[in-house]
């Protein structure tokens, strides 16, 4: 009994301390170093934060180059799909153009009516245009992980990107800045579990919090009033209750899936974003 226990302890000690012929460090030393780094990272001391920002910038730039073969593979796959979808899309688009042409005349009439009514009520459009500063950035890495759904973008503190700014792709909100380094920044996507956006549901005055589940087609609404029944095909707009995001930005839409379950999908596709706009809460066209 004592012998087997001794053997066990010897084997563990050997595994931890023995370096091997070509090993420069023992496992014990490296495990201790890892724990030290995790602890320092948790303490968020100013020197550690600035060191981390430098490491981040360096690694992100190298990672961008290293990700090129993987991106090329995705590009080929996308091109193949695009090719097969083009003909069908073309037919649908022709029909849509016809329908939009007729809608355009209605819109022109409504615009004129709106203008004249505003004039009568003495309302102006000023105030909506303030702070509409948007910075264009390139997506460097869109690595997915079981822990964080995020993007890395090519602009940072140097271009006045700060933590909390909103990120848009093709007119839709896709996330917020959670980490800003000197020349790069990290965007937390709205599909991430940690994302919480105050929204209002189209056609109602109901407020709720939109959270992610990791999937673009399955977002979650929290803090809905008791007994509220959510209907399909409703757009969710930002309510602006966080005091940062502008009111009325379209974020997500309710829909019925194949099994007739009501679900919420993001209007933007964060994984397809290559060029994004970063702004102080308002979307700049």
């Amino acid at each position, binding site marked *: 009994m004592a012998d087997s226990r001794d053997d066990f302890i010897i*084997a*563990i000690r*050997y*595994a*931890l301390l*023995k370096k*091997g*012929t*070509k*090993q*420069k*460090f*023992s*496992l014990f030393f*490296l*495990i201790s*170093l*890892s*724990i*030290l*780094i*995790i602890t320092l*990272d*948790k303490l968020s001391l100013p020197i550690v934060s600035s060191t*981390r920002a430098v*490491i*981040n910038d360096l*690694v*992100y730039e*190298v*990672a961008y180059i*290293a*990700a090129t*073969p*993987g*991106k090329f*593979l*995705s590009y080929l*796959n996308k091109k193949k799909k695009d090719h097969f979808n083009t003909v069908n899309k073309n037919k649908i688009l022709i029909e849509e153009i016809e329908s939009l042409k007729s809608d355009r005349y209605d819109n022109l009439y409504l615009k004129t009516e709106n203008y004249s009514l505003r004039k009568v009520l003495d309302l102006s459009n000023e105030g909506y245009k303030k702070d509409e500063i948007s910075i264009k950035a390139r997506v460097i*890495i*869109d*690595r*997915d*992980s*079981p*822990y*964080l759904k*995020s993007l*890395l973008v090519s602009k940072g503190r140097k271009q006045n990107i700060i933590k909390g700014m909103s990120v848009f792709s093709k007119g839709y909100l896709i996330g917020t800045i959670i*980490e800003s380094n000197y020349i790069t920044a*990290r965007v937390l996507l709205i599909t*991430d*579990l*940690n994302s919480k956006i105050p929204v209002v549901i189209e056609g109602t005055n109901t407020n709720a919090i939109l959270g992610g589940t*990791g999937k673009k087609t399955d977002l979650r609404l929290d803090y809905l009033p008791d007994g509220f029944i959510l209907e399909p095909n409703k757009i969710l707009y930002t309510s602006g209750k966080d005091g940062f995001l502008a009111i009325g930005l379209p974020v997500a839409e309710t829909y019925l899936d194949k099994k007739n379950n009501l679900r919420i999908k993001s209007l933007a596709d964060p994984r397809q974003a290559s060029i994004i706009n970063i702004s102080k809460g308002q979307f700049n066209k």
Partner: protein
Amino acid sequence: MNILGRTKNILLSNLPVIIFYMLSFSTFEGLKEFPDLVAFYFNLQMIIVYFYVLKFPDYLGYGHIFFAGIISDVVTGIPLGTSSLSYLILCFFTSYIRNATLRSKMTAEWIAFIPALFFSNLMYFIVITNFSHLSFYYVELLQNTFFTFLFFPFFYFLLNSYQKNIVKINA
């Protein structure tokens, strides 16, 4: 031997290290590049760590494993040192298995991969829950772990045959 041949030998001998760093830098995660096969993604880094520490420890140093883990953490955006610690725990279990095993058999090593993966992911889980405010995608993590275990034999034979050729060339 000429310079070209020597360079080729050095490159071939260090290929696992190069691949390991590339995987940490790049966005490639198993079959995740193909959206239809997204459910089958796995952690190739863990397979490489387990295989080389078990079979050819002189070809992949612990230092490289540590640094690649740090890079992986920076790219993924999780607390620095989490992946390193997770890989090193895997190394520790693998090293223990190597010392305790008298006769190596693929099936036994494949089964031994389960506790090694379990403790490695457990460490990951502990660090993420205690040292960050990140939430967890349990299903994705379970899928990842399951397919990492499932694809091990394929990579075992692939890496084993490659490494045996390298050992022959270097001999």
